[in-house]
């Protein structure tokens, strides 16, 4: 049954997952072209100086890429369910409602994470093409909180979409939005190296918390 749920979720999001994937690949292709162009118009030693000493993040425009990905996949997965209360049908499947909700969420989360991992691979490969491996590793560490924010964006959309009451949707949106901004506090490279584990660990609470709006949806206590 669980495999069927995962398959059902995949059918729902596959088109938008594909669109998000293409978007992500397109941005990284542009990143490659952009950095390559930079190295043709500027002396390499100056670009290295800017990157390592001044702290210029040549890949900074991919900051919100995974947030957008999380929102696309989250919206694709939950908007159809909420239109016409189709989600109620899912809750009648012969599986415990909480498990069903968690599997739906984990499926979507996995979809975002796969794109995130692909982004990480592309980022490392592109940066390592132009900078020494220290620069590529630094780019990964710098971008890691942005990848986390993509997962939070997805979970925030799931949380908000399932909640039946409008006022509560705003509350959940504020919590998710506020938490997401915790991953954008630094402007330099590797500023999260010593502390990322703290918000990342706490963010795990988003997964069980999705049970609450699902429960409220089921019992329509709005």
């Amino acid at each position: 049954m669980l495999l069927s749920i995962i398959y059902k979720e995949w059918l729902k999001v596959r088109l938008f997952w594909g669109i998000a994937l293409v978007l992500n690949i397109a941005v990284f292709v542009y990143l490659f072209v952009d950095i390559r162009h930079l190295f043709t118009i500027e002396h390499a030693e100056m670009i290295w100086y800017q990157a390592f000493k001044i702290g210029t993040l040549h890949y900074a425009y991919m900051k919100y890429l995974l947030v957008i990905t999380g929102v696309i996949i989250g919206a694709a997965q939950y908007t159809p369910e909420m239109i016409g209360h189709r989600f109620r049908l899912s809750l009648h499947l012969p599986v415990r409602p909480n498990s069903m909700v968690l599997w739906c969420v984990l499926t979507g989360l996995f979809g975002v994470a796969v794109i995130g991992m692909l982004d990480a691979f592309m980022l490392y490969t592109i940066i390592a093409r132009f900078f020494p491996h220290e620069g590529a590793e630094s780019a990964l560490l710098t971008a890691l909180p942005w990848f986390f924010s993509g997962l939070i964006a997805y979970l925030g959309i799931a949380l908000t979409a399932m909640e039946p009451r409008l006022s509560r949707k705003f509350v959940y949106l504020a919590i998710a939005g506020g938490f997401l901004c915790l991953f954008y506090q630094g402007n330099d490279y590797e500023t999260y190296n010593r502390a990322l584990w703290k918000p990342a660990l706490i963010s795990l609470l988003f997964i069980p918390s999705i049970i609450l709006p699902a429960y409220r949806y089921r019992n329509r206590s709005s």
Partner: protein
Amino acid sequence: MVPKLARYALIVLAIVVMSVYLPFLYHKVSEKKVGKTQLFFSPVIKKFVFREMVGEGHKFVTQDESGNDYDRMTFETLIPFVYYKNMDLWGKLPMTIDGRTFDKQTIKENRQVFELKPRMIADRSPRIQVFPLLESEPGVTRLRFPEDAFRMTDRMEFINVDTNTVDEDLTGKFTDAMKKAGVVFPARLTAGRVSILKPFDEGFFVVDVNGCTYHVKRVKGEPVVVKTPIPSDLGIRNIKVMENKKKEIYGMLLTNKGDIHLITCDDYRLIKLPLMDYNPDIMDLKLLINPLYRTAVYSDDHTIHAVAMDSQYRPISRYQRVMFSGRTTMADTVFKALFPFWIKTTDKTSSYLQFDLVWNGWLALIGIALSLLIAVVIMHLRKFRFKRDWPDFVVIMFTGIYGLIAVTIIDPEQ
């Protein structure tokens, strides 16, 4: 039971978010601009003089350590080596102090300022460990970045910036020179001033795995490696290289114990600064050198300290005061009463983000008590059932206003 736990998971998330942003907003609203105290040693009256902002707008006090007030112009005249351009403008140069006469050029040539802020310490800010080794004798007027950069591994490895590949020839040449000088790889610390906006280049100081310090330069393309006599058991934490035309001091060395030494250009002889109560992790340090005295001024957010020294760095006078900006204001007290704790994400003493929980002490009990009272009223209106919802009170008891807001906006299921 599961929805109940889910609600508390959400409440914890809400509390975390609020404990970052509510204090941040509070500070935005309540914070007033009060600059740090400017403290100097006056070579004229042989006393410390300071200028301090004591209120909004431009309310300043300008005094000496004995409490005598001065107007702005007199204050500047008391520290003529700092305001020597004004002295020149006001026709006070050349001036005679302690029987010595100083003109504009003499003052200019004998002034120097060294600074060490906590963020400048190697372990308090991230730094990609790839550095350019500039040509120290470029034969042209301006310094230039080389077409390679080095990293310290089990050798001194040079990478060509155009091809992003290791330059084996250069690597071999420098690694051999380093090994010949006695370097045992890997390096524990690599310190230099990466800039071309400096009068000349002094290369890098490298502390090897045994704690020995080496001075590495590129002179006409060739490696020049000097093993310095700096003791290997000194416990070097940071070296700040500061090239200056005076060529007296290479830079500042910080030890793990928090001692500051100047590395002199006189065969790397160390001069230990006689600092008391200096904490490099939270204090900004400035060393002001003028033709007569050296003054080390260091401060955290609360207290400013200073020690004046003669030209041999022997202390001649000390002073410390609680700065106006360090005094507890009503806004600070209200903050501590309102918020039982807060999550500190940034710290001006480090480039690393923190996410540390900061407790506000016993004053927070006032805010917690008030929050509990308000919670009782709200829960009474909402027909609260103690047997079911008592954990809400526990949440408020530990988290005060954050908990109150969280349990109110995420109310329990009826």
